[in-house]
């Protein structure tokens, strides 16, 4: 499943990085502590977070994430948007919580692959 499919299925607003919408999704991670996401996320993950500052893009690039979904109505800073455009990593926006959205993503067939 591609980022684009999830964006359409869950009616997520594309805030930036639309050039990366055709990336294949491997799994997902939820977390608002960047250090935890750096330690535990895997390449191709969707990352659900409330953090909107520019360092989320550094983490996404470092871990080769498929996309970032800002939950609970959070919106990215301008500089975060610029970096997402530059890196081609989509930032999608959801009004719902990480819990609710992650449940939906599991139902849609996005499972965290076992090691």
């Amino acid at each position, binding site marked *: 499943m591609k980022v684009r499919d999830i964006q359409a299925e869950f009616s997520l607003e594309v805030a930036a990085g639309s050039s990366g919408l055709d990336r294949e999704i491997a799994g997902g991670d939820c977390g608002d502590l960047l*250090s935890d996401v750096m330690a535990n996320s895997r390449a191709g993950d969707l990352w659900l977070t409330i953090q909107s500052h520019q*360092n989320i893009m550094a983490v996404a690039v470092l871990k080769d994430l498929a996309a970032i979904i800002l939950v609970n109505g959070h919106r990215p800073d301008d500089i975060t948007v610029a970096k997402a455009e530059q890196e081609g990593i989509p930032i999608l926006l959801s009004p719902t919580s990480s819990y609710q959205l992650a449940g939906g993503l599991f139902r849609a067939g996005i499972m965290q692959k076992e090691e």
Partner: protein
Amino acid sequence: MKHFRGDLHIHTCLSPCAELEMSPLRIVKESLAKGLDFIAICDHNSAENAGAAVRAGAMLGIHVLPGLEINSIEEIHTLAIFDSEKQALSMQDIVYTHLHGTNRPDIFGEQVVVNEINEVEYFNERMLIASTQLGVDSIVREVHRLGGIAIASHVDRPSYSIISQLGFIPHDLELDAVELSCMTNKESFAGGSGMLKELPIIKSSDAHSPDDIGRCCTSFFIKVPCIDEIRMALGGKFGRRMVN
């Protein structure tokens, strides 16, 4: 008492997110040009450029306090400011023991160690932007044990501040002050000020580029710009005080 204008939160080019122009010498020159009387150098999780800034300041006539901006396990930034480079480097030892990973300059930026005459010494290879494994409580404790002051960074900001990360300031955390960024002031931060309790409030620039230096600062009425005097001013004791 004399009036000293202090900017207690300036990053050098050792911080990956700061501009490369921010050499210790350049910062000292810019601080003098801005009319500051003393500054503190607080790079992310490191004091490796602080000594050079102290020496550059001594050459050109501005007092420089060496410090660090330490990132806790909760991703809370705390300023740790000292009188001597030796104290700052002792704090750095503790930080480095609890800091893991290697910097990726292509992603986070270069971390340049520069001496007081503007020569590049080497590149720091640690991931200075990362969080340490130290809780904010133990950071404050260690800073005090080494004789420094601990100030919660930019508590009005939506990231890396104690209020953004915890939602409150623990009553038993012995902070010496909290810092507001240039973007707000005590009055407009009134909404969040219930959380500031009785803590002294300073303002500093969190400068990452030369233009930022001294954009906001704090006025101290003290005898000399040293940690003991600053501590008394923060507490409003023995005739010392501060205004921002």
